[in-house]
């Protein structure tokens, strides 16, 4: 076991921020990792990760390539299990419930994911957004739900007349927003985004970042990004990963302006990574 002290930011220590209306908001630890270790075969990719992700906030995970931030993200919805020979030790808790004890398909309905490169299905735009609904046995009016999701993803106006065209007819940025709409359709409580803008131009990136701001009231957002400026722009809280360990985790302001660890400061100032 590693000796690096994990920075535990429990709800008691967080300064309570205010919502837009000025009333103080109490943060619940929506997703928690407790002493999480992850192994690819014999290789240990994550060492003793412990952190709490607050509800209705945007949490960013940053760090150099290969530091384990994506690996960590993928344990949160257990999509890491699709790779053979992986092992998890420790716990991930959603609303204080161990995710390993929950049916995995139910978990993934509550914790959605958007991937690094957009991966729309070879189906129409409509069918892409409707997929999650259909697969989970949605009984209501499909087209209303699809429209609602596309609006939440700020894509509705651009695609409303071509819902039955192939998803591949959209631009890269639109496809990624389609993937976000697809993930939102099942009304997840948490949305995980794995470097969602890394393949996109600055304008498309800005659109998605604006989108995240509008979503966080209804959703808890965790975003992995290799772009520090993006983390500084969007995140309320930021965690810095290095070589499979969580070095520092705090409000974004503290991480970027006043980090306590040397490694964090080195990374922020660009001395490596």
């Amino acid at each position, binding site marked *: 076991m590693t000796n690096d002290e994990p920075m535990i930011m429990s709800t008691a220590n967080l300064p309570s921020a205010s919502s837009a209306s000025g009333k103080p908001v109490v943060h619940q630890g929506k997703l928690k990792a*407790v*002493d999480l270790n992850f192994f690819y075969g014999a290789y240990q990719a994550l060492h003793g990760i412990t952190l709490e992700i607050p509800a209705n906030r945007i949490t960013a995970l940053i760090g150099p390539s290969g530091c384990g931030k994506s690996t960590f993200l993928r344990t949160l919805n257990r999509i*890491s*299990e*699709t*790779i*053979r*020979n*992986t*092992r*998890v*030790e*420790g*716990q991930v808790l959603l609303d204080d419930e*161990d995710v*390993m004890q929950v049916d995995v398909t139910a978990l993934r309905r509550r914790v959605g994911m958007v991937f690094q490169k957009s991966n729309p299905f070879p189906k129409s735009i409509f069918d892409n957004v409707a997929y999650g609904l259909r697969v989970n046995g949605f009984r209501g009016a499909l087209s209303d739900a699809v429209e609602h999701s596309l609006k939440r993803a700020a894509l509705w106006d651009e695609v409303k007349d071509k819902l039955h065209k192939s998803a591949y007819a959209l631009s890269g940025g639109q496809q990624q927003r389609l993937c976000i709409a697809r993930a939102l359709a099942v009304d997840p409580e948490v949305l995980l985004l794995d470097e969602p803008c890394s393949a996109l131009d600055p304008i498309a990136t800005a659109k998605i970042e604006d989108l995240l701001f509008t979503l966080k009231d209804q959703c808890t957002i965790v975003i992995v990004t290799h772009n520090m400026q993006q983390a500084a722009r969007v995140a309320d809280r930021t965690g810095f990963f290095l070589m499979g360990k969580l070095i520092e985790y705090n409000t974004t302001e503290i991480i970027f302006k006043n980090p306590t660890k040397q490694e964090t400061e080195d990374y922020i100032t660009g001395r490596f990574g």
Partner: protein
Amino acid sequence: MATTAASSAPPSGGAQVWLKRLRSGDEVARLITLVFASIILVLTVGLVYQLWATSSMPRHKFGFTFLTSSLWNPVTGQFGALPFIYGTVVTSAIALLIAVPLGVGAAIFLSELAPPRISSLFTFFIELLAAVPSVIYGLLAIFTLVPLMRDYVEPFLKKTLGVVPVFGGAIYGFGYLTAAVILAVMTLPFIISISREALLEVPTEQREAALALGATRWESTWQAVVPYARLGIFGSIFLALARALGETMAVTMVIGNDPSIHASLFAPGYTIAAVIANEFAEASGDLHVQSLVELGLVLFLLTIMINALARLLIIATTRRGSAQS
């Protein structure tokens, strides 16, 4: 906090865990597809078993002399495989002798010289050739190739090379040489398409290195590019050989059906596949049938070995190719 170790490998837990997974539908799907996949195993094992079991009579009666005896007489109950093994080997060998230079030459053209569009178009046509049924090749061979060989090619060869016993002997049109020619035509598409792919995988740096040293276009192709692709080319040759050995219909229709060994290529002969095709339906008596099955077993083993060799060579090329890049 308890440590839970979750593994993505199938749980080694008890029946209860398995039953729980069964209800998920995923395990059911896995089992169903597994059953279908095992049908392939069952079929292969069954095939080998049948070949072995249904050839027990001649194996016990003749032992290894089955392979060395050249007497095949259903009437007297004597069965030796040598004429057929001879015929199979001779026709296939000569077929390769004709097809390999032609095929590798065409492959070189298509990979090195031809503009991409012509290369794709020609390759498309050549791959269509591979789809032509054997019986059609046979049909054409009987009515067009046989007269051609009988009236023009074989007399010419006899006139010029008749000193050698291989080109001596009476000319019928039907025989080893004609069979070899049609086999060459049938195996040509395989040699071309696989060799072409092997040649396309050769990095351009190889060719450029030779050219930079002052080699001519041909020299760089023949001395730098082709040797680099030799594993894949050999693989294609072995694959073609395996197909030639097992080719039935076209050969049956032109080989002349004579179960004896002749030195002359113009003479009629027989191959393993051809004798099975001709005699199986009306075989007289169990020993006859089972001897034909034993011939099938011999053919089976022969083609398995050569196919395995071919695949090893082709895998070696792709592995080396990807290791290089």
